[in-house]
């Protein structure tokens, strides 16, 4: 379960980091939440808290089978501007793919060029530390 929770955290952290790049107008509409359809046996859905970003609220749901994430759903995302739509169309699918690939690597830690205190926030290590 720990690995699965880790991946949820990584996804939310990634989305929040992405959405924090630019300031955003206050006007927004929110996509309707889509409840998980009936799941196959052995799978269950875990819904994360709504994360407030500069663009508006984002909510992520993962579908877990045993201890592995098999699907990531974006329940809530900003859709008011062209930029929002592009994020929804291009960035979310990529972040979801990265989440699933980091999970399949089953890593405990990351070695790389030394990050600063600020750089740590955006690092995969940060997501791992928050996963426990």
């Amino acid at each position, binding site marked *: 379960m720990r690995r699965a929770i880790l991946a949820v955290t990584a996804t939310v952290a990634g989305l929040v980091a992405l959405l924090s790049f630019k300031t955003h107008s206050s006007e927004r509409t929110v996509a309707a939440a889509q409840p998980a359809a009936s799941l196959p046996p052995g799978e269950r859905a875990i819904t994360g808290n709504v994360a407030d970003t500069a663009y508006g609220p984002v909510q992520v749901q993962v579908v877990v089978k045993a201890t592995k994430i098999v699907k990531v759903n974006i329940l809530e995302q900003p859709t008011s501007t062209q930029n929002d739509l592009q994020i929804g169309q291009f960035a979310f699918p990529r972040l979801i793919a990265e989440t699933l690939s980091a999970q399949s690597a089953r890593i405990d*830690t990351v070695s790389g*060029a030394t990050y600063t205190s600020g750089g740590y926030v955006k690092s995969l290590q940060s997501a791992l*530390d928050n996963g426990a």
Partner: protein
Amino acid sequence: MPSATPVIDVRVRHAEHVMGTVVSFDVPASARADGSLDAAIRWLHWADRVFSPYRADSDVSLLARAEITVDGCAPEMAEVIAACAFIHDLSGGYFTASPGGQFDPSGYVKGWAVERAAALLSRAGSADHLVNGGGDVQCAGGRGAGEPWRVGIADPLRPGRLALVVEARDCAVATSGTAERGPHIVDPHTGRPAAGLASLTVIGPSLALADAYATAAFAMGPSLARDWTDCLDGYEAFAITESGKTWQTPAFARHLTPT
């Protein structure tokens, strides 16, 4: 009194902002209960106060300004200076404790301090733990169930992705590169930023040495680094060049995951 309950292996993760970066701990719950995690954190802050070149009142700053002698410093100063001199000579001067002409052993101190922090945990009885100082790792034992720790090596050319995964048990994994802070590693012989490599990883028993070796080899550039790391006893290297080519020392393959 209730009878003894079965021991459950609960692990603790902790991230400490210190030495200009973040040091991450993955330790057994016993390390929090017996105070050794706190002791390791206090040690890191002490090392930062004594060895930081960014603090005007640190021993390193006072020594650099010749306001005190080594005898007036913390006893660890002599040990650090001797280790830096050893690596300087072993690397043909590509590692230096005086980058830019001023005494600054930072290139050695972080790895050394993190290795000591891990040793503190071992001495308190922890068999399985991992300490990651800003991307440089010292581990003991494994991740549990008889498995070694799995350490992802960051891909310097694709931020957020891994280049490969290595297995580690009772050893250190250190990586030098430009991905996080730009071209900051200087070739001491030319005074210019080292070129040719995107990142270089060293695996071996001691993080103090692995980290310093990685820095020295990165400064050497791809071709000299390959020859030099081939000759290092007990330490293996993996490198990614600026153009994305990779090479590794022969025994590095022992650390690669089967998949």
